[in-house]
């Protein structure tokens, strides 16, 4: 092949190369969005390093020194006493409540998500799950099931589209300052997420076993219990722990709205201008998030190995 002929051939192949327009355009649009945000955002970054700001930062750094030690020489004993005081007075209870909120919320979310996920899974929520059965379903029957799937999916999207913080804000105004607003907020948002994940998992179960059971005359609930359950359990648990991790994260901040958990004390310390307590409690929050991550990773490993 001559050099020119080869070049023509290469150009032809290049023009004919398969391209995914959607992916390319999406990447381009996303890149443009990330860069463009800086151009049209008009963020006031210039004054971020102004004299005034730097003085603020300087003062803040002075104030995060434990209160009894401000203006004093460092003393381990005093520091430990200060830390222990904070822990006994506020930290311990707040940590317990924060974890409690996260646990209760994710358990509720998982329980709520189960029925929703079945109603949202097209393989189950249909007039004839897995195998044709008896008289063909009427058109009305088909539409009813399709409607159920549609309504459930819309509901799940609605639940997860709103952030936990917004849910908690609304719930707090209605229910008052118990732990319920925080629990409900986390539970609702995570029902939306787990419901979707679970529904996808249900739809991806290989049809063999459920179809065979249906063939033996098992009903919808029997199939769910006997065929889907065992196939799903490991994945459901994996998602459960993964979402619990984020629940712990979120639970630390929901208190800022006024529910007694870690966030409440953080907001309170901030309002009182006690930046030493404030930073201590933030770090405490970080510690329980890290601990939650570890527990979750460990538990997921356990589940994975058991299956």
């Amino acid at each position, binding site marked *: 092949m001559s050099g020119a002929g080869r070049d023509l051939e290469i150009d032809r192949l290049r023009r004919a190369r398969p391209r*995914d327009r*959607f*992916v390319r355009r*999406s990447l381009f649009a*996303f890149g443009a*969005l*990330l*860069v*463009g*945000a*800086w151009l*049209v*955002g008009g*963020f*006031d*970054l210039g004054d*971020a390093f102004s004299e005034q*700001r730097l003085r603020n*930062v300087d003062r803040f750094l002075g104030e995060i020194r434990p209160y009894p030690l401000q203006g004093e020489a460092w003393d381990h004993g005093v520091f430990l006493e200060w830390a222990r005081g904070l822990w006994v007075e506020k930290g311990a209870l707040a940590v317990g*409540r924060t974890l409690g*909120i996260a*646990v*209760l919320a994710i*358990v*509720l979310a*998982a329980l709520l998500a189960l029925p929703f996920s079945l109603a949202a899974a097209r393989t189950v929520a249909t007039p004839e799950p897995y195998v044709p059965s008896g008289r063909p379903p009427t058109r009305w029957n088909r539409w009813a099931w399709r409607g159920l799937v549609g309504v459930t999916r819309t509901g799940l*999207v*609605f639940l*997860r*589209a*709103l*952030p936990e*913080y*917004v849910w908690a*804000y609304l719930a707090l*105004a209605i*229910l*008052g300052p*118990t*732990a319920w607003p925080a*629990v*409900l907020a986390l539970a609702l948002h995570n029902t939306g997420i787990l419901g979707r994940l679970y529904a996808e998992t249900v739809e991806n179960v290989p049809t063999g076993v459920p179809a065979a059971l249906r063939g033996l005359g098992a009903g919808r609930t029997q199939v769910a219990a006997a065929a889907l359950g065992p196939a799903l*359990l*490991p994945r459901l*648990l994996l998602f*459960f722990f993964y979402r619990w991790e984020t629940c712990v994260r*979120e639970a*630390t*901040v929901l208190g*800022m709205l006024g529910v007694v958990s870690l966030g409440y004390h953080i907001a309170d310390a*901030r309002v009182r201008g006690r*930046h030493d307590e*404030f930073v201590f409690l*933030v770090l405490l*929050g970080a510690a329980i*998030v*890290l601990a939650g991550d570890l527990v979750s990773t460990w538990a997921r490993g*356990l*589940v994975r190995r*058991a299956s």
Partner: protein
Amino acid sequence: MTAPELPRRPPAVGVRGLTLLLLLVAGALSYEGLGLTAAGLWPNEGGLAVAREFFGRALTPAWTSEARFVPPGTPPLLLDALGAAGRTVLYAAAAMSLALVIGVVLGFLASSSWWTLGERRGIGRTVTGALWFVARAVIAAMRSIHELLWAVLLLAAMGLSDLAALVAIALPYGGTLAKIFSELIDEAPRDAGEALRGAGAPALSVFTFALVPRAAPDMIAYTFYRFECALRSSAVLGFFGFPTLGLELRQSFRSTNYGEVWTYLYVLIALVIVFDWWSGRLRRRLVTT
């Protein structure tokens, strides 16, 4: 002679069953520990009134401002809401671009493929090992503090500034991206990478041109998913005084203009759904093809 050993009977409740049981118990204990009652789920008089009024407007969101005094020339509410939505997107996008830089740099440093690919020994190995450890620690620190706590911290340190909002989102998101990126790279099949090492390619080239491309579709899909989360975080930052949807939402709720609240809620939901659809479609295209 001993009798042949029978296969051991499996325990009646397996590890997973036990886990399930434990979780339910943990839930019940939490319920007790938090001092919750079922009655607490029902609002009192005042709460009930709020609930009635609030949910009463669910199907009739406001089209114009409901404030008692509306200065002439005020733009229609929907325009207002769209403006706030736009700012929500801008904050999320700017923060995400920072997070992406953090995620790529730290993610590559925190990937353990670095020295399993290279045959480093001695000082080189110590240096890469130290870098890896530091990267991991930094990632853990950034991730473990929630973006709202970062926001409050930064606000306390420097006062209200856009930079505070952007950095507050960028730090935890950057850490999360870095963690997931490094995991994706480490879990990608390494056959091609090892073959190229066998052809004399240096570790950095192999890492960048054989391992990263393999993980790239998943990395892109995950970045899109995180952007959807960043939108929610950006909206919530409004509650702390930044001009995103959360700010408008809180103001309207405080002035009990519930129709407006619903308008903002629906705009936020629409925003999230649009990006959810976009990232879902992109993921399917990227990961199944």
